[in-house]
């Protein structure tokens, strides 16, 4: 395939991933990495590096909206970033020593989890306060956000910082190992364990993702794993797609499309498993 065709296909695919990702409320990494790996025949570590750069672009594009709306818990985000960044660096350092098939198998497991999360996970549009978890509220990280259904500002307490930190470390490790954002781990942890309302958890996770991704992206860059042309085409596509997706429509809440994309992820996961086992 000619270079121009490859870049054009990647650009179009990335636009679609950007739109789908913003509509589903997930990062595009779970779609981008397998496509770049399986369709373009690129090493999964290079694909992960590409994904990390696009994640930073996506986060930088969508975070300002959340920040202006005042739903990002900046203090909590900066606290959790310490753990996500630690995990991301360890993951990115480790990945250099892992075989391609092992990384592919790990990725396959994570996208099965992503499929289940997308299908049965918590609805990002719900503005529910989770039942207050046990533990002392840490007032320095307590937050406030505007509940759109009531139109009123609501305060919430933040609890269980140690559990949240552990979840942040795991999310960061996944980011470093396989190039995903880690929101599928952080968001439920903030919501269920720490008592953060869903919208604030999604916004805070998005705010943190750029910093987490940059910690691993720098390690990938230092190891010469960034392919600039692939990265540039994917980043432009994701930027366009995420911008269009976030402005044009509401998030997809219907079960139908979520089921289709979940099934797609399971199929991708199976292909990755077969590839990791040397059967493809």
């Amino acid at each position: 395939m000619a270079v121009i065709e490859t870049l054009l296909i990647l650009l179009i695919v990335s636009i679609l991933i950007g739109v789908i990702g913003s509509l589903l409320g997930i990062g595009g990494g779970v779609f981008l990495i397998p496509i770049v790996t399986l369709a373009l025949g690129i090493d999964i570590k290079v694909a992960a590096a590409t994904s990390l750069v696009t994640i930073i672009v996506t986060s930088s594009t969508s975070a300002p909206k959340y920040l202006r709306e005042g739903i990002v818990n900046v203090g909590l985000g900066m606290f959790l970033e310490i753990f996500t960044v630690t995990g991301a660096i360890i993951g990115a350092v480790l990945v250099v020593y892992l075989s391609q098939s092992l990384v592919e198998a790990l990725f396959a497991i994570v996208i099965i989890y992503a499929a289940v999360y997308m299908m049965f996970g918590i609805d990002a549009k719900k503005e529910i306060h989770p039942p207050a978890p046990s533990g002392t509220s840490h007032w320095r990280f307590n937050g406030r956000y505007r509940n759109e259904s009531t139109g009123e500002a609501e305060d919430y307490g933040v609890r269980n910082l140690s559990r949240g930190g552990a979840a942040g470390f795991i999310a960061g490790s996944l980011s470093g190992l396989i190039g995903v954002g880690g929101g599928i781990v952080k968001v439920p942890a903030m919501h269920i364990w720490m008592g953060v309302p869903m919208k604030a958890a999604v916004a805070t996770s998005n705010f943190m993702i750029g910093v987490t991704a940059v910690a691993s992206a720098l390690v990938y860059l230092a190891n010469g794993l960034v392919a600039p042309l692939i990265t540039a085409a994917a980043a432009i596509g994701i930027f366009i797609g995420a911008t269009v997706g976030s402005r044009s429509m509401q998030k997809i809440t219907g079960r139908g499309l979520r089921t289709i994309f979940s099934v797609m992820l399971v199929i991708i996961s199976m292909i990755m498993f077969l590839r990791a086992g040397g059967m493809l």
Partner: protein
Amino acid sequence: MSEAEAQRQISQRAERVLSHIVMSGAVISVALFAFGISVALGNSSIVDEKQTMSLDSIVSSISSMDSMGLIALGVLTVIATPLVRILATILYFARKDRLLMALPVVTFILIVVGFVIRM
């Protein structure tokens, strides 16, 4: 005004500053990517799209300011954006809240250490 309320107002001002920083970084980097790819396709200078870059080659291509240099600059701009955001947060909270200043300081040190040990 309660301490928590004062804290919230500081955070709101920080949120506005940070949103400008991250959005500018995204727009500049995507513009550099688009310009770099356009120039590269225009003069047919792309040989292998799968070619990866080392740090040395990134520095040398930026200094030559060719199409790959523009794209490499775009990659560096993407990476620099969250780092600038961290530094801006440190400066913003330096005189307002010691704890909120200390958190990004630790994060920044971790990122620098992670990068240095892989170089």
